[in-house]
């Protein structure tokens, strides 16, 4: 497929891997920040291609995963109401709260709908004036502009029966929290390509300088990830710590100014709780006061919902790159996508769920290596 197959070419992949082997002299720990990158790594088996000294650890950038359990419970409390049409991105539907998931609520009669664009809610709200349409606005900076546009248009166009349950998080404060931790192992980052397509990468420069850590803004295709890894290792081997842009076909340093302006008109930065990590100051968005009539947390009585997580779960350490899914005794046994015990198992982009989806809970050691028994690739 044009513009995609070029970034999945096995021959080019082997060349980049050879170059990584050539430049790498010491062991390095590199974190891919985004859930989409984690997914791509596991789906394509990229970590199996890398030399043993290069360890990829999986970051906190799965928006579904880091949405706190209490926020899920709030969503479910709202979705259960007979006067509500609850709209969500597809992959939130299977995320379990304290009691069941949105699929369960749907099977019990709740009106739960998957939308592909937040703006679909405008149509739904106009078609159902007697109902309250609530959109579950989650995500990183990537989904913020589209979600902000829904709030903005609802206000501008006077569509009163729309509200947003907002649980937005930001990448840079999470990276700082990881780097500031005494347990930190991460020596370089594959930065979040889609987030930076919106925000640019200027705000990563002070982080890179302060912690002396290379950050390479990286895309999501296999060759993007390999190239980003190579660029990070080149910096590490030459003791540089800079922000570089591997994803230059998509983004530049400034990002999308129009989207940033819209986001800042609708949202303001505030403290946010991250599932698996806890409270990070100034790490998320909330709706500005002007949008209070479209703020579901204010409209529905859900403020008192507070939920605790199972203690066995190590997702906090996984999200900070300290541990990997297979380090957890519950992985694939007590904890699986049907019964997730914590953040990283709840969405396809969480590290544990990605490992599970691509069969790594089934793998014995002898399968855990790449084999090319079908002969050389074309």
């Amino acid at each position: 497929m044009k513009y995609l197959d070029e970034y999945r070419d096995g021959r080019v992949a082997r060349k980049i891997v050879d170059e990584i082997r050539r430049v790498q002299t010491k062991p390095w720990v590199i974190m891919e920040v985004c859930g989409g990158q984690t997914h791509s790594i596991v789906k394509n088996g990229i970590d199996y291609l890398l030399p043993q000294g290069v360890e990829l650890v999986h970051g906190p950038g799965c928006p579904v995963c880091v949405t706190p359990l209490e926020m899920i419970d709030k969503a479910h409390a709202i979705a259960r109401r007979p006067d509500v049409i609850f709209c969500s991105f597809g992959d939130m539907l299977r995320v379990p709260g304290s009691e069941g998931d949105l699929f369960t609520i749907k099977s019990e009669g709740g009106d739960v709908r998957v939308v592909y664009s937040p703006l679909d809610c405008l149509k739904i709200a106009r078609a159902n004036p007697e109902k309250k349409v609530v959109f579950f606005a989650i995500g990183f900076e990537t989904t913020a502009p589209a979600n902000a546009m829904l709030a903005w248009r609802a206000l501008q166009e006077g569509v009163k029966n729309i509200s947003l349950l907002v649980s937005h998080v930001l990448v840079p404060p999470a990276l700082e929290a990881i780097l500031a931790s005494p347990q930190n192992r991460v020596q370089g980052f594959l930065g979040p390509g889609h987030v930076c397509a919106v925000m640019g990468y200027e705000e990563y420069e002070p982080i890179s300088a302060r912690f002396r850590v290379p950050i390479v803004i990286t895309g999501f295709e296999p060759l993007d990830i390999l190239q980003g890894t190579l660029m990070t290792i080149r910096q590490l081997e030459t003791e540089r710590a800079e922000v570089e842009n591997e994803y230059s076909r998509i983004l530049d340093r400034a990002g999308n100014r129009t989207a940033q302006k819209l986001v800042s008109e609708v949202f303001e930065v505030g403290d946010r709780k991250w599932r698996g990590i806890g409270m990070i100051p100034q790490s998320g968005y909330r709706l500005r006061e002007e949008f209070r009539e479209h703020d579901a947390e204010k409209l529905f009585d859900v403020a008192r919902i507070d939920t605790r997580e199972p203690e066995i779960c190590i997702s906090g350490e996984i999200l900070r790159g300290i541990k990997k899914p297979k380090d957890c005794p519950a992985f694939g046994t007590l904890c699986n996508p049907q019964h997730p015990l914590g953040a990283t198992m709840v969405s396809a982009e969480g590290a544990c769920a990605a490992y599970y989806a691509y069969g790594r809970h089934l793998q014995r050691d002898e399968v855990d290596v790449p084999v090319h028994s079908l002969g050389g690739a074309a």
Partner: protein
Amino acid sequence: MASLESTANPDSKEHAAKADAGTVAIPSPFFGSCPLPIFEHKNIVLGHGSGGKLTAELIDQIFLPAFANPILDRLDDQAVVEINGARLAFTTDSFVVTPIFFPGGDIGQLAINGTVNDLAMSGARPLYLSAAFILEEGLAAQDLRRVVESMGAATRTAGAQLVTGDTKVVNRGKGDQVFITTTGIGVIERPVNISASRAHAGDKIILSGYIGDHGMAIMSQRENLEFEGAIESDCAPLHQLVAAMLDACGDQHSEHPIHCLRDPTRGGVATTLNEIASKSRAGMLIREELLPVRESVKGACEILGLDPLYVANEGKLVAIVAPEAADSILQAMHNHPFGQHAVIVGEVVSEHPGMVRMETGVGGTRILDVMFGEQLPRIC
């Protein structure tokens, strides 16, 4: 009746195909340690109709205990029974697709071809069919006529006769236009023994053509997603393709070289390969770069975050064949309109029994597991 399936998936509204529950390993300790099956859901959820692990749970824990018998317990796509020396294939299937007319077909054609294909996958020639209709009050008579005429045409193409039927009408809102259940009987005339449990190490895995067309045609129509180049369902009867494949092997073999045939409907090629791997206790190894996926389907899947390996097909088959016969079978497939894009995508291996492994396009490796429930579009 050999195959049990969960009905309707009214939201994903896919053709509810066979769910091979018995073949699906549930690695969860929640089930294994308990002498009585625990059905964890208070209510049926849509995922119970997905063909994945939830469907398996439903079949294992609710249906099988009630009906258990040696023929059903095989959980093949069809039952094969012997009566007075004649070997008959017997199968049933329900169809609940929205929209009922879609690019490349309609629910009527789907209902006939789906049952014809389940018969064909045992090597049977379809003979007699039945159809039961659940009609929703308010359905346009013209639409029903169109569906039924399409069924008539599909039945004639299959060389079968629809010999009995039933009709019920439910109140508006209690159904979704039309639900159709078809049942079929066919006769197995050749000395073949085709079953998902017969894959041997060394066998070649053949795929009859492009994957994911049907599922993505339905999804793009349903969600009003407009892609460049319309995607059409691949809905087609496969009995003649199967006959051509069987004929290509001749009679000189002591054991017929076609070991397994399956049509990868709901759950897609990945689910089908898992079923065969599990039943045959063999490993499967396929290569991503050999998989035939149309550009339009690839693009639609990329946009929605779906994997074409798990998307439904309605006119494709997976064949597991002895390596020495693979070329002549492939040749015969290429000469048939429904097999002209057939390719060998991998082979059966003795390593990792019960698991399907794929070498990825960039040279990595991954396991293709059975999905839990439905594939969900990803957030970003």
